[in-house]
């Protein structure tokens, strides 16, 4: 992408970065953050909240893995274990993975990448952060009072009648959190429609924007359903209604339909943004236009739409009609096609590229590999005959960690490493960051690959103790988690370090093209010095005028 006039007389050299007014030093004091309406500051606020929840969720993951070191449940009581994996799932899904990329990277970059001054509704954006934290407080309240033990899926009638833990406040926490997600999604759609810079037509949008747009569609159409579903669960529990209670004539399977109507599309809320990030990274580090740009863009929207038609694949053995199961199975295969197309297009982009192995690219390549495995096993479990064996076993646990951790988190970390210099104007250490990418990749596979085997051997999920023959693989998995944990903890330190001591990054450290690289690092409050005008499609690495700018690269480490 190219702009006619970036910032003609604005200071451009790295030395003046700190003196320049930017969104970070435009204003000081805690209130200037808490009351800000600047999408970039809200992104930072979100970064802090989301990271805190990630840390919390990870501690629970560590507890799960330690408990499963031995067949007998000796680290904690069964009840405790059930609460631990429930809190792990709830926090990771609703309070980390769903907001992570949209609310942090999306918030920061979406207006910049389309050349707007801010999102269309800045107050709503700030409200979204507060609502998110309010939902978090409800959930944490439940946590400190003893937690919930329903699993992140809140299946009835266990959650409505039999569990004697804090289901209501957790459900309300997730319910409230849903509003924050909706606010973000709604804001993004409106912004993409109405605030694009002059000349920025739909097919000049970066693929990250396309994926954020598709994600937002899913958010807007899906989230209200989980809201009403969990509200019903809370109401049923509080008032003893019978909507999901078979003893009172209700139907527990209805709950599952309503839950998965949202929660399957929600997995695309998690993966689509990450796919968008990967498109940016692959283009930037192969210095090449994404292979089949339009098809990749349409694939995002295709996944978003088709993703609404497959939820029943979580219910193959619940006694769902076998005909409905058949339909859901075949539709699940259809939705895999656009995902496959994306994987192939990224790979093909590397062909004849000019590939550099900066940290973000390592994450991107890791993503492609791990997502492929996760996705393929997803299609395997979408096959009816196979799913009856592995449903609710560790095979499923492995599948979704491959897509969620190997996919989404790899994308999130890759994106964070890619745009970090833009967000804070500083570079992080190259060696350490590459090391952490490597640790994450190796640790991840060590943790979760054995779980595929465990699952096929028949180890059910949500088991606090298990028959001894499963121990070997569980020990392996726990060992892997330790490596993975180190990989996750490292960035916390070097990112923090970089804020103060990191090398000044310059405006375009990667020599990438895109509107975000045309403004300063960190960007000014209203993002640009002059209104950018877009004259070309994205990822134009072969044009002469773009070519010149690539010399600015400041190699890392």
């Amino acid at each position, binding site marked *: 992408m190219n702009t006619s006039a970036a910032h003609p007389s604005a200071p451009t050299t790295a030395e003046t970065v700190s003196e320049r007014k930017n969104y970070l030093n435009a204003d000081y004091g805690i209130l200037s953050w808490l009351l800000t309406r600047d999408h970039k500051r809200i992104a930072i606020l979100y970064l802090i909240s989301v990271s805190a929840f990630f840390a919390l969720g990870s501690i629970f993951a560590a507890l799960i893995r330690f408990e499963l070191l031995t067949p007998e449940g000796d680290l904690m009581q069964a009840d405790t274990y059930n609460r631990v994996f429930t809190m792990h799932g709830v926090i990771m899904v609703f309070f980390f993975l769903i907001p992570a990329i949209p609310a942090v990277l999306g918030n920061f970059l979406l207006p910049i990448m389309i050349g707007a001054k801010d999102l269309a509704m800045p107050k709503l954006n700030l409200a979204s952060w507060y609502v998110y934290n309010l939902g978090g407080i409800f959930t944490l309240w439940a946590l400190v009072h003893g937690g919930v033990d329903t699993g992140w899926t809140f299946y009835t009638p266990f959650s409505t009648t039999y569990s004697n833990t804090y289901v209501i406040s957790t459900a309300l926490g997730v319910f409230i959190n849903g509003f924050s997600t909706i606010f973000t999604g709604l804001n993004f759609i409106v912004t993409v429609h109405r605030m694009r810079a002059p000349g920025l037509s739909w097919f000049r949008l970066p693929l990250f924007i396309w994926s954020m747009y598709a994600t937002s569609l899913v958010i807007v159409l899906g989230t209200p359903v989980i809201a009403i579903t969990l509200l019903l669960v809370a109401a049923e529990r509080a008032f003893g209604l019978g909507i999901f209670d078979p003893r009172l004539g209700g139907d527990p399977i209805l709950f599952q*339909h*309503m839950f998965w109507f949202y929660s399957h599309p929600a997995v695309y809320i998690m993966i689509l943004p990450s796919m968008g990030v990967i498109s940016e990274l692959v283009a930037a580090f192969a210095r090449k236009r994404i292979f089949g740009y339009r098809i990749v863009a349409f694939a995002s929207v295709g996944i978003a739409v088709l993703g609404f*038609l497959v939820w029943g694949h979580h219910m193959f053995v619940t006694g769902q*009609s076998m005909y*409905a199961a058949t*339909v859901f199975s075949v539709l699940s295969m259809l939705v895999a096609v656009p995902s496959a197309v994306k994987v192939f297009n990224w790979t093909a982009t590397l062909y004849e590229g000019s590939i550099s192995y900066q940290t973000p690219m390592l994450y991107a390549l890791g993503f492609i590999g791990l997502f492929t495995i996760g996705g393929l096993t997803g299609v395997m479990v979408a096959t009816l005959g196979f799913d009856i064996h592995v449903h609710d076993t560790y095979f499923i646990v492995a599948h979704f960690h491959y897509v969620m951790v190997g996919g989404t988190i790899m994308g999130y970390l890759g994106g964070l490493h890619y745009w970090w210099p833009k967000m804070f104007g500083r570079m992080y250490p190259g060696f350490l960051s590459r090391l952490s990418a490597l640790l994450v990749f190796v640790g991840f596979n060590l943790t979760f690959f054995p779980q595929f085997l465990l699952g096929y051997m028949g180890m059910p999920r949500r088991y606090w103790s298990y028959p001894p023959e499963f121990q070997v693989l569980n020990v392996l998995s726990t060992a892997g988690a330790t490596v993975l944990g180190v990989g996750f903890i490292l960035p916390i330190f070097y990112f923090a370090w970089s804020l103060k001591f990191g090398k000044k990054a310059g405006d375009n450290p990667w020599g990438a093209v895109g509107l975000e690289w045309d403004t300063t690092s960190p960007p000014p409050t209203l993002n640009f010095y002059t209104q950018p005008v877009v004259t070309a499609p994205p990822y134009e690495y072969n044009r002469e005028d773009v070519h010149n700018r690539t010399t600015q690269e400041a190699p890392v480490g």
Partner: protein
Amino acid sequence: MADHTHSSHHITSRKTYFFVFAALMVLTVLTWLVAQVDLGWANDLVALTIAFTKMMLVLLFFMHVRHSTRMTILTAAAGFFWLAIMLFYTLTDYFTRGASVLPVLGK
């Protein structure tokens, strides 16, 4: 910005509003009247058709969909379409279950 047409500041007249209001009231009475008669399977069909008509009146006139951009119409339509997806696929399960309750082959 490629996709939107300039939204007109169209002013609907008071008369139109009144007629729409009156039509809505008439339809309310109508739906009540029809409900007194047992039409068998058509009970719900008639009731829902009337409700749907009323909804369209509100949408088109009171909510100015008549004069809005294609984008608005698309958005509203998407909402109802997705609702239909949810209802349709969920009910597909329930309505085809009978078959799987008696899954005996060759008997």
